[in-house]
């Protein structure tokens, strides 16, 4: 399955791009996508406990299964307002 990963703010700076494409195995979850990403970019690891995620413009939990074509977003702690 192929998914799109979107990254924001400092996560984007660490990874060096706003959007990545990833091939994932069946049974993949948002959490497994995150761990794969943190393997590629070790500076992401400290965000393990504070990151939020969204799938196709809905906030979602890390144990949520991903499907082919999903847009997964990883969001560092927010600071709007």
């Amino acid at each position, binding site marked *: 399955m192929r998914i799109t990963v979107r990254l924001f*703010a400092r996560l984007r700076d660490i990874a060096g791009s706003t959007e990545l494409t990833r091939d994932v195995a069946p049974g993949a979850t948002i959490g497994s996508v995150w761990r794969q990403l943190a393997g590629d970019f070790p500076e992401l690891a400290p965000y393990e406990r504070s990151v939020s995620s*969204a799938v196709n413009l809905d*906030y979602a939990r890390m144990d949520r299964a991903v499907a082919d074509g999903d847009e997964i977003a990883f969001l*560092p702690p927010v600071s709007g307002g």
Partner: protein
Amino acid sequence: MNTPLLAIGPAPLTLEALTRALTADDRGGTDGAVVTFLGLVRNHNVGRRVLYLEYEAYEPLALRTFACIADEARDRWPRARLALHHRVGRLEIGEASVAIASASPHRADAYAACRYAIERVKQIAPIWKREYFEGGDLWIEGATADPEDEGARTAAERAACA
């Protein structure tokens, strides 16, 4: 010009546009109170002299989050209506990053809904500011965004004095 009730984008924010969008809804004259909030860029933050800010957002999710905040406020204060605009891009000192307006027949609900909305924006809207200060810059990281965190929601209601 038709101003939407919920918006995010690079255009400067004005209270007049926001309250016009809100009170245009009230053809019946039932509103007795309008409360607004403007968040401004300050020149200092925890001892740093701030030069300017850059706001970034996951814009389509931010808009959905604003709609979710408006729904929450309507559940809690059914007669209050909300308008909420957030700006992105580079903002200078004194410029408004967020503008919120709430209208209601009575002032208590208008104050509460307006305060609740800004608390929720800070808790769950996918928006980030990068602070450029004398000597460097950094991403500000506040709350882990989780719309289902009841503890955070309750804290926002408490701040709204509800």
